[in-house]
């Protein structure tokens, strides 16, 4: 499952995709919004995506990990829109027969997502906001 969605991510739905009985190891990663950033209280984050291209690039990431490691099921969900602290922005679940592949592939996928998927986030504070990763 590969998805870019405005809806809240339910970790149980992500887990359901990787439940096959050939999966000896399932590694899941949930990227959760922090309530603090550089000493400021974060009210929420605004995520924005170039949706069609983002989905395509997520597919590319999944293709890359399937090429490098022997995996069974993979699930990647990126949430966009307004996300409050404590909620999940990114969920990656990787299932493999053995744990090493699952750990390595999951970690690689997260790094690549940050690198090549056209998604942006803005931290919103009580007194304004800031796009992350650009000087303004």
């Amino acid at each position, binding site marked *: 499952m590969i998805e870019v969605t405005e809806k809240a991510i339910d970790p149980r739905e992500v887990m359901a995709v990787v439940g096959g009985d050939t999966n000896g190891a399932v590694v899941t990663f949930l*990227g*959760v*919004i*922090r309530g603090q*950033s550089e000493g400021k209280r974060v009210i929420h984050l605004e*995520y*924005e*995506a*170039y949706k*069609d*291209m*983002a989905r*395509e690039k997520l597919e590319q990431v999944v293709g890359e990990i399937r090429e490098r490691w022997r995996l069974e099921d993979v699930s990647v969900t*990126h949430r966009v829109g307004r996300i409050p602290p404590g909620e999940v*922005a*990114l969920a990656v679940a990787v299932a493999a027969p053995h744990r090493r592949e699952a750990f390595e592939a999951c970690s690689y996928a*997260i790094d690549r*997502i*940050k*690198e*090549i*998927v*056209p*998604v*942006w*986030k*803005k931290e919103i504070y009580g007194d304004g906001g800031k*796009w*992350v*990763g*650009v*000087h*303004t």
Partner: protein
Amino acid sequence: MKVKVLLFALFREIAGQKEIEMEIEPGVTVALLQERLREAFPRLGDYEPLVAVNGKYAGAQDVLGQGDEVALLPPFSGGCSD
């Protein structure tokens, strides 16, 4: 001919709009279109965006065609916090 320019995140805020239709003549390159956008929105000149044409990364010298969708992409910051 016409192209559609998509602006995201900070660039959308600088331009005050997320989509601009622009009239161009044949032979206009990605670089020239960017120059015209910077004339219209000088603060865009502070950044060196990645450009995608019809969802694929494009080079500065690529020539645009009728109906192309040109996206200006600020540095990505998706996924979770570091």
